[in-house]
């Protein structure tokens, strides 16, 4: 007696529950490691999930085990070549661990790091844990919202394409029952009986009068059948659709960057990291995210990603040109009714004298009302960090933007001097509102 059972179609991931339990338990540690790893590794491959190793503290499973050294041990090995009884073999580190240490504890003891791979989802979950998009509700209120047609019950009028057959037939059946519409079987039975009587060669008187009565009732039935139609216009029901406001699920991220001579490789690299982080974050929150790259010197142009990050330009610095370009892009392609607009600007803080006022005006009057959020990141030289520690000090652009920030709560500005700053700054920008309030107070 034996059986073969094909289990391949059975659900996999039987241990998913266990995996989740483990993640929950090790969450704090994993998070620490993830955050640390972000500071060190290239942001461009962040989204692939990654292998991490966490300290076993808190996830170790202690057991009573023999120590791997000390005491007297007897061990048997295979493959003797030249040893004779009584031979003495020098211990590798002059004591402590003996030769036996090699095959000593195989219990996994002494293992301090636990390595495993996080999935992309798990990684990003931890990565963006407790970050939230700011001010969504407020902007939605004043926006034109997109509408989507949704089913909302049934109506008695409509186009034939929306006919709901099931509902119509239900109505029809109810009405026919209520009005006692004679059925096919009933009429057929009468007709049969009449035919049978008709066929008789010599019908009796009773039979004749019976025939008469039958004919009469058949006539009544047929008339009733005509009065009560199978499907009446009152039965007919259509599916009804009504427009329903829908929050936008599309976002566009507009990256602005100063590419004039003063922005070197380092500055660009920092800016890029920030942009990538923002992009990943938006990607998780919206069904679709577009990215627009606008670079500027003394004039601005929309470019593709590679040009944006890698090509060199020379020229002065006029920030307002980029803002003009941004407005143009928004008006041309990204109506606020369909798109959530995020602005992200990176610069080293320099601007052409006299242009700054124009920037303030454009931002406060035209751009900020359209944007969900606008983040300005100033990239500092590492030596400058000490000088510019306070929010008040700063280059012309910084001081000007300060005014915009005061007026608009969805405008944020931060400074970055080294790669390690980016993630904390990013977290600060998007920390949940309650946390932010707590930080401020």
């Amino acid at each position, binding site marked *: 007696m034996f059986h073969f059972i094909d289990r391949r179609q059975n659900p996999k991931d039987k241990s998913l529950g*266990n995996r989740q339990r483990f993640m929950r338990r090790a969450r704090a540690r994993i998070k620490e490691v993830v955050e640390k790893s972000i500071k060190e590794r290239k942001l461009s491959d962040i989204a692939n999930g990654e292998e991490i190793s966490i300290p076993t503290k808190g996830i170790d499973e*202690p057991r009573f*085990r023999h120590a791997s*050294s000390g*005491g007297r*041990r007897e061990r048997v*090995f295979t493959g003797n070549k030249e040893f004779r009884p009584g*031979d003495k073999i020098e211990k590798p580190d002059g004591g402590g661990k003996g030769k036996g240490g090699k095959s000593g504890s195989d219990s996994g003891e002494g293992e301090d790091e636990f390595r495993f791979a996080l999935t992309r989802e798990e990684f990003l979950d931890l990565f963006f844990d407790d970050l939230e998009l700011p001010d969504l509700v407020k902007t939605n209120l004043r926006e034109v919202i997109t509408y989507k047609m949704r089913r909302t019950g049934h109506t008695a009028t409509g186009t034939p394409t929306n006919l709901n057959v099931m509902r119509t037939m239900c109505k029809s059946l109810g009405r026919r029952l209520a009005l006692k519409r004679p059925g096919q079987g009933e009429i057929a039975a009468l007709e049969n009986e009449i035919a049978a009587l008709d066929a008789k060669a010599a019908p009796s008187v009773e039979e004749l009068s019976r025939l008469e009565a039958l004919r009469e009732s058949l006539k009544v039935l047929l008339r009733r059948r005509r009065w009560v139609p199978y499907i009446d216009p009152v039965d007919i029901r259509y599916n009804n659709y009504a427009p329903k406001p829908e929050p936008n699920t599309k976002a566009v991220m507009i990256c602005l960057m100063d590419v004039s001579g003063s922005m070197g490789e380092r500055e660009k690299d920092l800016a890029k990291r920030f942009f990538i982080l923002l992009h990943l974050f938006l990607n998780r929150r919206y069904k679709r995210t577009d990215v627009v790259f606008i670079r500027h010197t003394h004039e601005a142009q929309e470019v593709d990603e590679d040009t944006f990050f890698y090509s060199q330009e020379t020229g002065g610095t006029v920030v307002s040109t980029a803002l003009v370009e941004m407005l143009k892009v928004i008006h041309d392609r990204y109506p606020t009714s369909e798109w959530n607009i995020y602005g992200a600007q990176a610069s080293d803080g320099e601007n052409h004298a006299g242009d700054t006022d124009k920037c303030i005006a454009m931002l406060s009057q035209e751009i900020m009302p359209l944007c969900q959020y606008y983040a300005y990141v100033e990239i500092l030289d590492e030596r400058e960090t000490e000088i510019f520690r306070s929010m008040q000090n700063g280059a012309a652009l910084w001081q000007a933007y300060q005014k915009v920030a005061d007026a608009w709560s969805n405008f944020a500005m931060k400074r970055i001097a080294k790669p390690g700053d980016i993630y904390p700054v990013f977290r600060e920008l998007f920390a949940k509102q309650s946390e932010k309030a707590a930080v401020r107070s």
Partner: protein
Amino acid sequence: MTRQQKRAQEPLFEGSEWTFEKLHATYAAIEDVALNDLGLEVYTNQIEIISSEQMLDAYSSIGMPLMYQHWSFGKHFLREENMYRKGFTGLAYEIVINSNPCISYNMEENTMALQALVMAHAAFGHNHFFRNNYLFRQWTDADGILEYLQFAKSYIAKCEERCGPAAVEEVLDAAHALMDHGVFRYRRPSRLSKREQVAREKERLRYEERNFQDIWRTVPTNGTGGAVEEKKADDDSENARKLNLPEENLLYFIEKNSPALETWQREILRIVRNIAQYFYPQKQTKVMNEGCATFVHHYIMNRLYDDGLLTEGAMLEILHSHSNVVFQPGFDDPRYSGINPYALGFAMMGDIKRICTEPTAEDRTWFPEIAGTGDWRGTLKNAWANYRDESFIQQYLSPHLIRKLRLFLCVDEAKQRHVEVASIHDERGYREVRTALARNYDLALIEPDVQVVAVDMGGDRCLHLQHTVHEGVHLSDKGRDGVIAHARRLWGYDVDLIGVDKDTGEKLYEAGTARPAAA
């Protein structure tokens, strides 16, 4: 089918793809050899085909088809998965479960030749061993294990619902820490069917509810301090007798006597304890179990090949896997990681066959009972049924095999600067090497000997554990303190552990929750 009929038959299969028809035919051929030639007795086989993901799943729940949920299984899963994905380790071709019917999992990725090998290995080799070895017969309940696991799984899930996962996790963590010391080594545990199990559990609960009388707690106990002092000495021995001390099964003791546990927590300890007990024979028979399965598959595959039922290609593939499995590098080989239980077991079984059929003079002096009897089947079956690793090696490791494996014994004294080669594969050394190797497989020596020696139920309720130190080998500190902390959680009061030398009775160290861990 008799031996005369078989020559020049059609091969059972060609090519590497397997189908269920081929599996059926091959199974029938293997079964024929296993039952009629080798004379194995097996449980009904249930062979399940699973994918590699499912195999990983099975790994992480210690190979059982059903298991309660716990984070440590998730941790093992992640480790295995990581190793597998990176190609450090392959997956096992099969997993076999000691149950009736005997369930074995075969991987979908196996080629037909491997499926044949795996069926012979697991469905007959391991199966026979499970069914006949005395340890398994006495200590495990193959008929009830799946039912019991089902009960355990749903019970723990219910506890999680009622008390929250965190509370259950705490108990399980602590229970797992003591799992190795949650088995009866000498006393036989009682056997219970699942239904009795549930009935008993209900009965226990009912009894406790019925007898809970809060009012007794508030009645003052009489007796003065002096009287208590006097009584204490008597109490201690009385206590020890009543609690059946010393007790080797720490989990059992805590489950029965802990002042702090609730009924459901005790039941969870029972579950962990029962599972530990179920796996205890497997720990003691690694060499024999694998040796038996390897010997059986090797014999059956060769028979099938001789009978013309396997193609040369299939046989080559089978031999390739077989020799990978029984590969034993020497001690100085970078691949050396201890003695391979497959290799040792297989070599010993083959050696027994040789002694039975073609003994040398040496064999006749060493094994007068079996040398030259010719009945190697009976001898092997007797060995499989009545020995465990330690006794098996002690009984059957022959000088011939010691020479062949070039075994040698090293003595490592912590005080010495040298490791000394005590004995090698020569006339003077055979017995010593054999005894030492047997002791290397003695679970009583591999696992630390920790027992409950005393508990003062009337006083501070401190649980006293004693570690009997053999040959001066201590416990590893980290694990020790971790386990004691877990034990404290279950016991509810302080737990302390003293290390006592086995020979001199000298107290070597103390640890416990009452004093700082470093003490």
